[in-house]
């Protein structure tokens, strides 16, 4: 399953998403979701259940791309986002 989060990492939507993750799920953080780049200690980054990615374009537009890189957080481009939607039949958006 693929989850898409477009709200900040401590929002209701983020908490609900984290509580809904199953082992092997993937997550793409888009729009305000990329604010998670500022929190290397965020519960999502620590969780072993899911692979979580920041959408690079949105990290750039929101000014958090370099901080994401400096924290060694995983970024993906649009084609990587599309790839994840190909690989996961079920896609849930949290907003």
């Amino acid at each position: 399953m693929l989850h898409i989060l477009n709200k900040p990492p401590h929002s209701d939507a983020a908490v609900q998403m984290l509580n809904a993750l199953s082992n092997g799920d993937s997550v793409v953080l888009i729009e305000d979701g990329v604010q998670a780049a500022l929190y290397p200690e965020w519960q999502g980054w620590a969780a072993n259940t899911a692979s979580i990615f920041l959408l690079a374009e949105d990290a750039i537009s929101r000014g958090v791309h370099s901080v994401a890189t400096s924290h060694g957080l995983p970024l993906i481009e649009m084609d990587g986002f599309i790839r994840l939607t190909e690989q996961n039949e079920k896609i849930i958006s949290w907003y």
Partner: protein
Amino acid sequence: MEYGLLVMGAPYSSTAPHSALRFAQAVLNEGHHIKGVFFYQDGVHNASRLMSPPQDELNMRDAWVDLHHQHGVALDVCIAAALRRGVVSEAEAKRHGKVNFNLEPPFELTGLGQLLELQQRCDRLITFA
């Protein structure tokens, strides 16, 4: 693959339409197909032909229309959500005693059943809200 999109944010008030449009373009570039976009909740405002953004900004309605003409993407708008919010076709305007209207083809007013069908007929349904 066949994709479907559900858009629930209004242009200029939410970034959802922009994200959805960007996703649509990328998914088409990868050789996939988009069956349709369903506009629900505040997303119905995407269909308004009365929006007049400043010249240096994208007219979101026109961008959706381009996507329809170039790639045959159906543009369905939830009729109940649209009427409530003042987005009406010529036919609905007449039925509700309005002289003006602001929704035209290729946007189509339709019921929620269309959304359920889109989710069932597509390989992937993705929500932007």
